[in-house]
């Protein structure tokens, strides 16, 4: 849930709760106040009626108007008279509806007889007034709540815009693009502080990153030069005529080892570069073309092992990938499929819009499948193999969010690369 939605909801529920109880309380307070006023009025009338009864012997006339109506009953006739203020309803013939009245019952002595006297006061007008006041109040409060909500939401939205913009930019931030981290200015101090901290943080990371890159590059450079010297000296030594077989073998072994070292250095550097996303520029390439090229360069080996190549290419498959990495990717997979193939085996290459699958005949692997893509993990103990080919494949797939997996089915090894991103 967004923070804004959360605060809005909280605000709404609290205000609505307060508003509900407030209006109920308000209604009863108002009602109470009005009743008190009416009660005072009725008390006044009661005094005047009692006075009238006491002073004059004139008959008290019964007016038609309900408001002035007085009902006098002998007390004996009423078993349980109500002696206070209470509300009642009378049917109004003229208006043809029940009208609420406030009634006061009291007992007065007259001619030594006790009478129960009731006087009334209509509540119709006051009720109307209460309802109107109540309505106006309700609408007013409701309007205030709504306008407040809208204003708060709008200002918050504007303020949070900067925040969302920042989040979006952090999400899209790629340290390899060398783009500046242009964050929006905000008039809110907290957000401005956040942006400032982020900018200084990314600056620091960028600096560290470029330092690291420089370091890797320098380290590799520094390693390559002495290796180049060793290799060249060994190569010269190999040419010398007066070496016996034993010495020649020793030089050759040392030469091979230093070669392996330099190759390892180069390959690890490549892996680091792939991991650091240092191959940013992508082009639309045709995997068919690349794979055909690879097959062409490897045709001698395919022939020598009498491997049957089966191509199942869909038309117009295109990939958006760095061409250099694509070449390494396919080269590694195809070479792998040829090396681990059996004599007169099959090499099946499937290209479709969603995946590329390279399969070859062979015997089941002795090693754990999950270790297949691990660095320096190799089935053969052959010292010349670096065991980095498949981890390069995996790293390249990682960069482009391709899913690479291996399975063994029908005496064939299948390496499948499934794409999510397809160039339009």
């Amino acid at each position: 849930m967004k923070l804004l939605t959360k605060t809005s909801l909280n605000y709404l529920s609290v205000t609505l709760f307060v508003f509900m109880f407030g209006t109920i309380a308000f209604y009863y307070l108002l009602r109470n106040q009005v009743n008190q006023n009416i009660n005072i009025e009725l008390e006044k009338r009661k005094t005047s009626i009692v006075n009238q009864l006491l002073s004059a012997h004139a008959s008290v006339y019964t007016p038609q108007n309900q408001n002035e109506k007085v009902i006098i009953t002998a007390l004996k006739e009423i078993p349980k008279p109500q002696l206070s203020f209470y509300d009642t309803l009378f049917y109004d013939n003229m208006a043809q509806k029940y009208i609420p009245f406030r009634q006061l019952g009291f007992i007065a002595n007259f001619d030594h007889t006790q009478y129960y006297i009731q006087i009334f006061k209509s509540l119709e007008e006051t009720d109307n007034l209460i309802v109107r006041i109540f309505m106006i109040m309700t609408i007013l409060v409701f309007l205030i709540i709504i306008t407040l909500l809208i204003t708060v939401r709008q200002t918050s939205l504007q303020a949070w815009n900067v925040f969302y913009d920042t989040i979006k930019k952090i999400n899209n931030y790629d340290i390899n693009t060398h783009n500046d981290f242009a964050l929006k200015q905000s008039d809110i101090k907290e957000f401005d502080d956040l942006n400032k901290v982020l900018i200084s943080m990314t600056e620091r990371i960028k600096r560290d990153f470029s330092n690291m890159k420089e370091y890797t590059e320098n380290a590799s450079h520094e390693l390559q030069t002495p290796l180049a010297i060793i290799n060249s000296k060994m190569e010269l030594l190999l040419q010398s005529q007066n070496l016996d077989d034993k010495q020649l073998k020793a030089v050759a072994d040392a030469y091979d080892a230093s070669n392996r070292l330099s190759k390892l250095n180069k390959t690890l550097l490549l892996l680091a570069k792939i991991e650091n996303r240092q191959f940013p520029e992508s082009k639309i390439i045709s995997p068919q073309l690349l794979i055909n090229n690879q097959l062409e360069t490897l045709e001698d080996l395919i022939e020598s092992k009498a491997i049957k190549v089966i191509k199942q290419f869909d038309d117009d498959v295109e990939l958006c990938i760095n061409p250099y990495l694509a070449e390494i990717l396919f080269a590694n997979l195809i070479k792998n499929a040829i090396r681990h193939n059996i004599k007169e085996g099959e090499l099946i290459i499937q290209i479709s819009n969603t995946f590329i699958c390279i399969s070859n005949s062979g015997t089941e692997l002795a090693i754990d499948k999950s270790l297949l893509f691990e660095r320096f993990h190799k089935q053969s103990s052959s010292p010349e193999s670096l065991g980095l080919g498949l981890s390069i494949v995996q790293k390249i797939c990682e960069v482009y969010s391709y899913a690479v997996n291996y399975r063994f089915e029908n005496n064939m090894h299948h390496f499948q690369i499934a794409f999510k991103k397809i160039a339009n």
Partner: protein
Amino acid sequence: MKILIIEDEKTLTDSVVEYLHEEGHICEAVYTYFDALEKVELYEYDCIVVDINLPDGSGLDIIKQIKKSAKSLGIIIISARNSLENRIEGLEIGADNYLTKPFHLAELNAHLKSINRRINFNGNEELILNEIKILPNQHTAYVHDKELKLTKKEYELLLFFIANKNKVITKSGLAEHLWGDYMDMADSFDFIYTHIKNLRSKLIKEGCNDYIRTVHGVGYKFTICE
């Protein structure tokens, strides 16, 4: 061929000079940017071999300088930098080849030979070694004037052998020449064995002497006396 080597690492330069000298080239070596600029201005060379990282300047600037003076000579970059951008930049400003350190001397030699053909013979040269004739321009090889049906790799292999004739060529040197970097070496050694076996049998079938010798545990040698 007259070659200038610009490389600040003296011991490496010595090896290169020695190897190329044996091949019959005239080699001069300089170790700094300014010395290199002076030499290039004053003398004529057929080819320069230049390192990018020099202590007092960039090898790329030397190449730019040469290209400005419109001298036609071969340029080979040797650099420890291995990134694609460096490679592309080097080739864009007019270098013929880009070798990353550590490189094989045989590889450098093969590149120099091909530059030599391009510069001095416009590529129309015939390479003749006893019964073998190669027309580099057409990528064809003949034995006793009969065309050999070679695959691309076999042809490259033969050319590489001839460029480095009478030298011990290591398996890894061959592998890198044929397959470039990033190839698992176990693959390449098997592959090279296959290639050489095929090439050998094709040559012998046409009546060619068996010049390719296996130097046990080391590599191969194309032994030929003209």
